[in-house]
């Protein structure tokens, strides 16, 4: 599970580069540029991925 979560983080960083909507000016719901919506989705996915990381990858408790 630990490796899976770290793979998700790497996948998120790759998908974040977004080659799909680079020149797409579609307005989703009539007001939201699709490129902006995609990256807002990435932010949401980052929150979920980091939640999984705190569940499965958190370091064990130890001038």
């Amino acid at each position, binding site marked *: 599970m630990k490796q899976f979560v770290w793979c998700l983080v790497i996948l998120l960083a790759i998908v974040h580069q*977004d080659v799909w909507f680079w020149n797409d000016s579609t*307005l989703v719901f009539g007001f939201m540029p699709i*490129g*902006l919506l995609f*990256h807002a989705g*990435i932010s949401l996915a980052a929150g979920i991925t*980091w939640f999984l990381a*705190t569940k499965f990858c958190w*370091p064990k408790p130890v001038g």
Partner: protein
Amino acid sequence: MTPLIIIVLYMSLLLSLGAGANRLFRGTSQDYLLASHSIGPVLLLMSLFGTTMTAFALIGSTGEAYTKGVGVYGMLASSSGIIHSLCFFVVGVKIWTLGNQYGYTTQIEYFRDRLESDKIGLLLFPILVGLVVPYLLIGVISSGGVIQQVTAGAFPSFFESTNGGIPRNLASLFVCGVVLIYVFFGGMRGTAWANAFQTSVFMILGMVTFYVIATKLGGEASFLENLRKASQAVPEEKLIREHIPKLAFFTYMLVPFSVGMFPHLFQHWLTAKSAESFKLAVVAHPIFIMIVWVPCVLVGIWATSSLAGVPPTVRQNDVLPFMVKELAGPLLGGFLTAGILAAIMSSLDSQFLCIGTMFTNDIVLHYAGKNRINDKQIVLLARLFIIAIVAVTYGFSLLKHRSVFTLGVWCFSGFSSLFPLVVASLYWKRLTKTGAYASVLAVLVSWIWLFSNADYGANREYLFLGMMPVATIFACSTAALVIVSLLTKPPSDETLRKFFT
């Protein structure tokens, strides 16, 4: 006059927070500089978020979207959502553990210990301070600019040259004074409280701004119709990323690594009550970024439409204050200005406190000897250094005006390029002090060379080999660190036992 009254009331609230924190002050340097490691998850999240979201978050994001379009969100915001949390996770938690174990307060104390080198402090100190000061200037100058813009017309007989608005320099002095007072009396606890309060203020008022501007631009009955009307008037070139080079977009992802080496964030990490306190910040940070940035980017692209009527003479960083002044009434305009100032001041306070701490711990205490200075004197020293750094920063703000915003990304690039050093120090046993010196010097040389090539920041579109300059500096830093470490004597067994068992 109404916005000014609201700003003064808001500043008074902040001062009362500082006074409240002062009543809980335990009189020790640990309490003044690290809030006695008492900061829980919610306060840690709010203070980390408030500190990382500077003037760039509200004013910068709107201004950048105004000139470059929606691609700004992917370039600056969603990348930060991934990378900032990564830094909190892999660097912050580990640093907190070591700091708690060995009593560190500053980065340099940690690096001196880990690298078995006293001199590394003398190399890192001027670099870290040199990179933070322009970052401070961005906040000081932009806060003055915002107040000047929204108070225009309030004092026509006093300030003719600024259209009746409070002059930028005077407004900056007022902001510096307020931050200085609550940091001086409240220390880290006052700073954390003020950050939490200000983060709430700018998040809520940011959304209110978005709602008001959409309603005014659309002029329709329903909010959704207003959003549609505002977005559909935006030129197509602002809805796509055609003019952002793909390699530049890709390498921009290295810029948010700067949070791994910000000295003021390092100090905030050490205030945590436990490692568990970091969990909420790691998870919620990307969501909070989305809540603040998406509305600002939309407002930025709306400003390019004929509906907004922003004259071409308005500078990029004045777009949001202009929209607020033109589209919101004076009462709401005052509240929204308080929100913008909240975003700026919640970073200024941590940076002032951090530089004061670095001068106290890394220079005076380190060279004079901890045993020769008692705890009360340490607090007094920190306070005197905070006054000095506020005065120096304000002095600099009077000299430089327009080019300071272009320095922002260069400051972040410098901090980002030091990120390999902090990661290697935490996870790579083979890192040597010579490797660390080589890495820092590689950053210094490549940063200066690229900065001069970019006409000292004046060329805002400067790319090297089609990439952001940070990519080259980061690569030089990493290569020097690895190659020199492998060629030199490993750290002692005692150091390895101390940091890796």
